């Protein structure tokens, strides 16, 4: 994030925000400001409220307490200033859409009226396809594309209209390494060059660790915010989980070792144990 944007007004502002379902509190007293160009990673075990955090910012989930604002206004669904990449789901083989039709839905899918594509829409779709590197399969039916190719199209949908906020829900999930890098790069570019705030919900921080400015870590109804080196530490996560957690750095990768916490880094933990 540049010095300039650090002084600019925050794009996302949460004050004393909290979410509870019945007696269960996902998280509470969340104060957070995200600035233009900032890349925020949202981490935590399953069910800790990462996706709910995104739903709040999308205006799809009301807060139980506190306020949430985007660009100085209360969050609302359908804001054109917010781009969203939902969790990866593969599209059925017989979906009657070409790649370019899917991208067009990201531009004007919410509008009703006679579905006529204007020259402007066509040009915008073409530009988006180029930006995500999907020109080669622009006319292919979406149902036959690989998960990575479909995910590029979802990125294109989210980038439509150059949003000020990009909300991504596990966008790299189940992608191969090459596609992971490509998608991560696309989102980082949107943050650094177009001054968008990126909120990136993920299980796995390593593929994006270079890009991340700050981390929000949710667990057990609490949270920690800070830079990677401030949050991803043994003592911080141990306190958050209220159980011993080890964070090990190995060749620039962070590996979280936690035996009894239901956790996503288990896989890494296994690998490291085998390696040792």
């Amino acid at each position, binding site marked *: 994030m540049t010095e300039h944007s650090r002084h600019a007004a925050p794009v996302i502002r949460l004050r004393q925000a909290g979410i509870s379902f019945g007696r269960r509190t996902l998280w509470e007293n969340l104060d957070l400001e995200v600035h233009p160009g900032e890349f925020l990673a949202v981490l935590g075990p399953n069910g800790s409220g990462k996706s709910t955090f995104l739903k709040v910012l*999308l205006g*799809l989930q009301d807060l139980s307490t506190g306020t949430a604002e985007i660009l100085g206004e209360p969050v609302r*669904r*359908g*804001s054109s200033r*917010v781009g*969203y990449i*939902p*969790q990866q*789901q593969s*599209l059925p083989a*017989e*979906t*009657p*859409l*070409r790649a370019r*039709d*899917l991208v067009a*839905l*990201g531009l*004007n*899918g*919410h*509008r*009703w*009226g*006679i*579905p006529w594509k204007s020259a402007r829409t066509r040009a915008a779709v073409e530009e988006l396809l180029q930006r995500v590197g999907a020109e080669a399969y622009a006319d292919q*039916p*979406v*149902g036959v594309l690989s998960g990575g190719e479909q995910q590029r199209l*979802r990125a294109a*949908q989210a980038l439509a209209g150059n949003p000020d906020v990009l909300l991504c829900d596990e966008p790299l999930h189940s992608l191969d390494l090459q596609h992971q890098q490509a998608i991560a790069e696309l989102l980082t570019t949107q943050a650094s060059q177009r001054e968008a705030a990126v909120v990136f919900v993920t299980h796995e921080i390593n593929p994006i660790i270079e890009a991340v400015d700050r981390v929000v870590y949710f667990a057990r109804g609490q949270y920690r915010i800070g830079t990677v080196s401030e949050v991803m530490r043994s003592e911080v996560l141990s306190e958050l989980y209220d159980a011993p957690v080890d964070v090990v750095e190995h060749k620039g990768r962070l590996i979280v070792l936690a035996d009894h916490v239901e956790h996503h880094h288990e896989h890494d933990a296994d690998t490291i144990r085998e390696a040792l």
Partner: protein
Amino acid sequence: MNLAASLNLPASLAESPPLALVERIRSSYTLEGYWDLFQLVQNSVITAAVLGLMGGIFGVFIALRRAGLVVHGIAEISFAGAALFLLLGLNVVAGSAVGAVAAAVLIGVLSLRDREVSAVTAVLMPFGMGLGILFLHLYQGRSANQFGLLTGQIVGVDDIQTRTLVTVAVIISVVLVLLWRPLLFASVDPELAAARGVNTSVLSMIFMVLMGLAVAMSVQVVGALLVLSLLVVPAAAALKVSHRPLTVVLLAMGFGVFSAVAGIMIAITGTIPISPYITTISFLIYLGCLLVARRRRRVSIRKAPPVIPAAS
């Protein structure tokens, strides 16, 4: 326009069209007689054509939302509505429309929260069918009417019915075209659509009401048991051979119109009811499309560059 009068048909024919028609269908095999007959059933042909068009557009969304079973469920429940109205001495078409829309709305409301549309449908379907059987059992009238509810009865459509069916089918089609993008968006990617401001719940309810009406209309042509042949099969066939949205819709409409109209035109040469013809034609179209798709796939595999074995 009174067709019987305009065609100079005997008075008895004008008095009881269904019986006279059957008589006339039996005795007509020459070309001259055929065109007389064709004119006589032109109401049905128009209706079938318009319903075929509507079914084509509708089927695309039914396929996208995997709602084939829901269509069948609504059709069976619409039969209960028709049977009830028959029992009460009211208009059967209105009865099936009321039944279908009520069923569609009920399924929509019950499945809005948990999205288990097919489970809800599977629960309601036998109940509706049971009610229908009960009402028919209580009805003392002619049994021919009863059977028509299930297997189709279009030959008897009069001018007013034609106008109603065509009007409703056109309205449904227009609404579908206007809602095309959000409906497509919500069907393909409900989560993103909701985030982009599409009110997916309201849209689902509108879709269910339209589906109820569409089923009620189609029941008039092919009957409650065979509605899928007009609302699902044409689009399913089109989806096999194309992935371009516009092409799929146009093909599906073409298939729908062809099977409905050709079904009627063949049916009037003999005594077999219309529905078997329509269902068979639409099935054959589907089969044809399946073969075309298979063949294309084989060709594209053959065209793909051969795998070069790695040097050992």
